């Protein structure tokens, strides 16, 4: 048998002109956990999709245990011994069936299986699988009644029933609590002992510390770092993931005037350290942190979509405790959410309707829309932000990603904000559009406090006056955007100071 389980050589994949994988070399060894890190858009999910047969590669080869491996489709990949447990757990289980049926589901679709289900036999087999995996749940319980962790275990157990050579876990702990994650890690340890090669995709440093044998890092469709000598250099891995080429953008730091937004002892999660933060008029504050650092939670709380555990918020000295998005918007707190496709774009609407959606009231006479004013206002924003389109009557779907994002940002610049929240404003945006958006945000920053939620350091350095680092729901570092000590910044992000012991131990 070969010394590798899966060997990927020069793998390439592009969607149209968009080169997502530019020659990836990865080797997975039996009985070892390889962690794959990479920011959004680095190409991790595309790599996984090629390996598990969802996409065909455009170039390069894959070898599975010494034999050429080019899966026709997902079923073929599983057949050959490469099994993937995807991020959304419910893709891996059938919620309305009981545990035993879920565990045995793959047997039921086998060709040789008879017409009738042999109930007792099925339960016996399921019990065997469950005990081999150390799963201790009632086999007759409906999967929809189980906890997230148990469902995850069952999804993995289903995958393991195939005795795979390679197991891919895509962000498996993203919806698990600490104790639940511990159970998952125990299971992973057991699988490692059985000689399975595991590819584990995650951003969570505490997970990575707990289970990684090796770390490989992707950035912009290529491997930007590979770490296999113990002890693993976690900070170098984070640096390789986020990158910090010096950007050409020079930020003239503006520390702002009067405080607009003040957070006092705001606790984001139960048992998290409370945060204190001021954002001043004219200032652009970037909040950076890895997935699960609490920055999305903070954005939700500020926009009235969630409540803080405790603590107070004030805007211009007045108490602020929004109970809904309407409340927040009425107080002048606007947010451009991340993932514009699901959270922002109205696919059926044209550019003007998409842009003016929050402020239709101001563009109406009584209840009737003033189409001309709506068009003129949109036209102004189109030229200010340099949105490339024929007319503002074009469907939003005719625009490129960068231009769509500009429309979504312009939406919240139509009316003056007290506090402007931008959650991952550069997601799926080309470099030109990113510069345009950044420049415009900075140019209009007077008269409001601007908070930008980002995962990438580059982007923060481009747009912010001040960079605030979050980790585990708390603020762990603050840097003025002038001669930033990048090493210290990266150390803050990876949680080097606070989490020597790890969260889950």
């Amino acid at each position, binding site marked *: 048998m070969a010394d590798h389980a899966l060997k990927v050589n020069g793998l390439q994949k592009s969607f149209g002109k968009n080169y997502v994988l530019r020659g990836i070399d990865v080797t997975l060894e039996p009985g070892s956990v390889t962690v794959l890190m990479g920011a959004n858009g680095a190409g991790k999910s595309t790599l996984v999709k090629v390996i598990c047969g969802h996409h065909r590669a455009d170039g390069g080869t894959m070898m599975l245990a010494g034999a050429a491996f080019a899966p026709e489709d997902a079923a073929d990949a599983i057949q050959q011994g490469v099994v993937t447990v995807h991020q959304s757990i419910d893709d891996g289980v059938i919620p309305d069936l009981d545990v035993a049926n879920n565990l045995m589901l793959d047997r039921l679709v086998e060709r040789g299986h008879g017409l009738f289900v042999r109930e007792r036999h099925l339960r016996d087999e399921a019990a065997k699988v469950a005990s081999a995996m150390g799963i201790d749940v009632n086999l007759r319980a409906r999967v929809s009644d189980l906890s997230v962790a148990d469902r995850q275990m069952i999804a993995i157990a289903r995958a393991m029933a195939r005795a795979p050579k390679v197991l891919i876990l895509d962000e498996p702990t993203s919806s698990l609590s600490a104790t639940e994650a511990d159970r998952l890690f125990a299971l992973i340890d057991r699988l490692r002992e059985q000689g399975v090669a595991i590819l584990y995709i995650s951003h969570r440093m505490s997970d990575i510390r707990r289970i990684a044998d090796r770390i490989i890092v992707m950035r912009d469709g290529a491997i930007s770092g590979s770490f296999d000598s113990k002890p693993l250099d976690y900070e170098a891995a984070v640096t390789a993931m986020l990158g910090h080429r010096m950007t050409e953008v020079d930020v003239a730091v503006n520390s702002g005037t009067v405080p607009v937004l003040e957070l006092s002892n705001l606790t984001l999660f139960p048992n998290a350290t409370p945060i204190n933060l001021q954002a001043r008029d004219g200032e652009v504050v970037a909040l950076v942190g890895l997935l699960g650092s609490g920055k999305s939670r903070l954005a939700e709380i500020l926009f009235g979509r969630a409540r803080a555990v405790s603590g107070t918020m004030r805007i211009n000295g007045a108490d602020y405790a929004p109970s809904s998005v309407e409340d927040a*918007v009425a107080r002048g707190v606007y947010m451009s959410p991340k993932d514009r496709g699901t*959270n922002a*774009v109205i*696919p059926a609407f044209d550019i003007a*309707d998409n842009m003016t*959606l929050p402020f239709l009231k101001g563009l*109406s006479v009584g209840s*009737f829309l003033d189409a001309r004013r709506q068009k003129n206002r949109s036209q102004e924003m189109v030229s200010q932000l340099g949105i490339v389109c024929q007319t503002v009557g074009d*469907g939003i779907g005719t625009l490129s990603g960068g231009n769509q994002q500009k429309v979504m940002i312009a939406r919240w610049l139509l009316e003056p904000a007290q506090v402007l929240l931008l959650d991952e404003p550069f997601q799926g945006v080309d470099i030109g559009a990113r510069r345009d958006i950044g420049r415009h945000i900075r140019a209009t920053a007077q008269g409001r406090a601007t908070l930008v939620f980002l995962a990438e350091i580059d982007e923060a350095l481009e747009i912010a006056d001040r960079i605030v680092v979050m980790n585990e729901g708390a603020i762990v570092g603050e840097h003025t955007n002038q001669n930033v000590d990048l090493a210290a910044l990266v150390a803050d992000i990876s949680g080097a100071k606070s989490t020597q012991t790890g969260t889950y131990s």
Partner: protein
Amino acid sequence: MNDRLLDFAIRYGFLILLVGLIVYFSLAAPGFFGPLSAAFVLQSVAITGILALGVTCTLVVGGFDLSIGAVATSALMLSAYSMVILEHPTLVAVFLCLGMGALVGFINGILIVKFRVPDLLATLGMMFLLIGLQRIPTQGNSIATGMTLADGSVAEGTFSAAFLWLGRHRFDVVIDRLLPMPVVIFVAIAVLIWLFLGFTRHGRLMYAIGSNERAAALVGTPVNRYKIAAYMISGVTASIGGILLAARLGRGDIASGNNLLLDSVAAALIGFAVLGAARPNAFGTAIGALFVGILLQGMTMMNAPYYTQDFVKGAVLVAALVFTFYLSSRRTGAGH
């Protein structure tokens, strides 16, 4: 060139087909083309058209209202009960029915937004409930003046002249006593809903909810309130349809209105194809209702048997849906 042809076909295909139908029937069936025949067609589609406009509003917010037919027949029975048995004046009967429609719509909306029942199931349940409820007060009998009640007394109330006027009055247009009142009401409601959906900010926000509910909520749209409002509009228009039906029949006939639901849903869905809108819209719905009416009238005048009607309606609906979903998706390239 091919693209432009396709675009033209999607945009005007249905209207051209409509004109073609009129021309064909005018030549093939003597007497089809004329004011009397036109008034008859309009009369036949007025009530389903009104219901279809209501269901259009629920389609706009991404919902569906299956209870409209039952709301209409409930309004029919309620108005009869109110006037014939309780001997209420006209206005009271009318407002009772409108209030009932609004209440049913409100309950539908609450079931959907607060109790998270899927729209089809919530309104299906409501449909059953209403079909049963409307029969309870009269022990399953139709209501007419002179009927014997459960306690042995005789119902002495009558439909007032003012009420019957709503369903039977005909305005003098071109010919004396040509244009029926329900047609006037249908046109008025169509214009109102058209203005509301197409030109007010409320309409625009409702379309936004139907297209991407999450995004609409994240700009501060009170999504739940708009959804409830849509079901209330649907309930009220359905009750208007029921009132007009009662006023035309002049009795609380338990068996009428069976086809209302399917016919009006079909009209609203056919409306997707008009002008290549590919989404629910008031103008399309009105044209959709008219299209079915003209087709049936023409076929009747050419002596096609009555039992072929549903088949033809179904065929038109399927064709319109293919138009909307297949051709329009080809136009925008693969995807939505």
